[in-house]
């Protein structure tokens, strides 16, 4: 086993570890931000500034009894949360998180920061994200409960509808960059226009970016699109019958999916790790990347506690009648411009 292989394994392990942490950090961040927005403190008793609250949550969930309803389908009930969280982790596999680095000169050859570098990376992310819906649908069906079933049905309808707009907005970026590899798309955004404005695709694709973010919120089933678990109508939606660790896996998958969405948005629209030349010079490009991802994640939480939930028919109507046509129009205009100017 040579050094390069070991370093790559280390990077993969670290990304995996950080994704597990991401869900804990996001749980805390969500409750803190929600608290500030509602003019209260949020969790503050466990540890300094409530920092150990996620740990307490996890220990509590581990101690709970694991229940399975009598009429539930044995195999699919167990499989559903596993499928959900596996798809969430796997989707991050081809997302690069930083420029090539030698770790401050420790290595002879630079390594790419990211779990895997595939030449169809954008499509791999999209393919695995689309597998995530099975976890929710199966959870809803196998629980043998009408609330769960309603949640599962809503989830599948919603995710099919918004996947179209999501993929079409991505296609416009791929056209601009002329590559399906996420790393190449990021590197196409290096540098500045007139030495001031960074060459990020968000400035060329403002509509595409907005569509991506909206569809991303719907894909991760978060408010204002959290119909699969609308508390007031469906108790808790698809995960009503779950408890203990099996229950914990669903929010974990949701938070990891959020992190993946934000990381992909950063890579494809916000120039990835480019933008702060000072950090680039010191080989700390991933710090820039983390800052941008954090900014998008904060926006996600901000939106959740600001915008009230839509009605279900409004959701489907908006997806099919506004978002999807807008993304198709965006794609056609982009294609025409790329073809005309041959950029």
């Amino acid at each position, binding site marked *: 086993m040579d050094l390069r292989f070991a370093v790559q394994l280390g990077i993969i392990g670290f990304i995996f570890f950080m994704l597990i942490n991401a869900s804990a950090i996001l749980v805390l961040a969500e409750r803190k931000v929600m608290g500030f927005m509602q003019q209260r403190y949020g969790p503050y008793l466990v540890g300094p500034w409530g920092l150990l609250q996620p740990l307490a949550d996890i220990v509590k969930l581990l101690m709970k009894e694991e229940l399975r309803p009598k009429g539930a389908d044995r195999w699919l009930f167990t499989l559903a949360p596993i499928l959900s969280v596996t798809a969430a982790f796997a989707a991050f596999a081809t997302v690069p998180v930083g420029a090539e680095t030698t770790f401050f000169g420790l290595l002879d050859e630079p390594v790419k920061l990211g779990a895997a570098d595939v030449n169809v990376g954008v499509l791999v992310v999209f393919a*695995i994200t689309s*597998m995530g819906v099975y976890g929710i649908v199966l959870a809803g069906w196998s629980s043998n409960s009408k609330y769960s079933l309603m949640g599962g049905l809503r989830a599948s309808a919603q995710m099919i509808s918004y996947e179209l707009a999501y993929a079409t907005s991505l296609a416009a970026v791929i056209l601009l960059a002329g590559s*399906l590899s996420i790393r190449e798309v990021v590197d196409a955004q290096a540098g500045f226009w007139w030495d001031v404005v960074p060459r990020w695709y968000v400035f060329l694709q403002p509509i595409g970016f907005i569509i991506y973010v909206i569809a991303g919120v719907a894909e991760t089933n978060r408010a204002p699109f959290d119909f699969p678990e609308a508390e007031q109508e469906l108790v808790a939606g698809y995960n009503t019958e779950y408890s203990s660790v099996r229950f914990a896996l669903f929010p974990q998958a949701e938070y990891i999916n959020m992190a993946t969405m934000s990381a992909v948005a950063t890579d494809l629209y916000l120039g990835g790790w480019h933008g702060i030349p000072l950090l680039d010079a010191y080989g700390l490009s991933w710090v820039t990347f983390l800052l941008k991802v954090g900014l998008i994640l904060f926006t996600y939480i901000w939106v959740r506690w600001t915008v009230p939930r839509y009605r279900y028919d409004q959701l489907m109507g908006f997806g099919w009648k506004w978002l999807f046509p807008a993304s198709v129009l965006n794609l056609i205009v982009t294609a025409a411009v790329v073809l005309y100017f041959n950029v």
Partner: protein
Amino acid sequence: MSETIIFYLLSGLAIVASALVIGQRNPMYSVMLLIASFGALAGLYIQLDAPFVAVAQIIIYAGAIMVLFLFVVMLLNAPQEDAAEWDQLHPFRQRGVARFGAMLAALLIVQLGWALLKMTELDVPVGGETSAATVSSVRELGRVLFDRHAFAFEATSILILVAMVGAVVLARREGPQS
């Protein structure tokens, strides 16, 4: 060596899962096993140096079409097929139909055997100029699809459109709309 092991694992998974799809009484399990079979096929495509085809397989079949299957199965809510009634009523259980099916199956086995024997005679070079990597590159695939096979491509899309319009016409309610 490890590639051979992975190949046999994936192809074994694909075959076993496909066989089990037919054997399940619960249509929900059939759908899940079919997804597993598609996943194994995608793995085989990756081994053939065709990542784009593999990803397309996952996106289109496992990600989109099977979600629709699952949707329909869930909405129909048919957890168990009633075997006793099927035995007597279903036309496929009639004697003549069964014989015809057996004949077709035998024919298929003969054909497969013949094709496999032929395969060993052909000496196709692996790699070389037209390796899988160049054939399956997205750019090359797009060029061939919209250039050489443009007519077939457009004809197929019209065919799909006809099917969609037909489905809408068939599903539409007759009489005055409320």
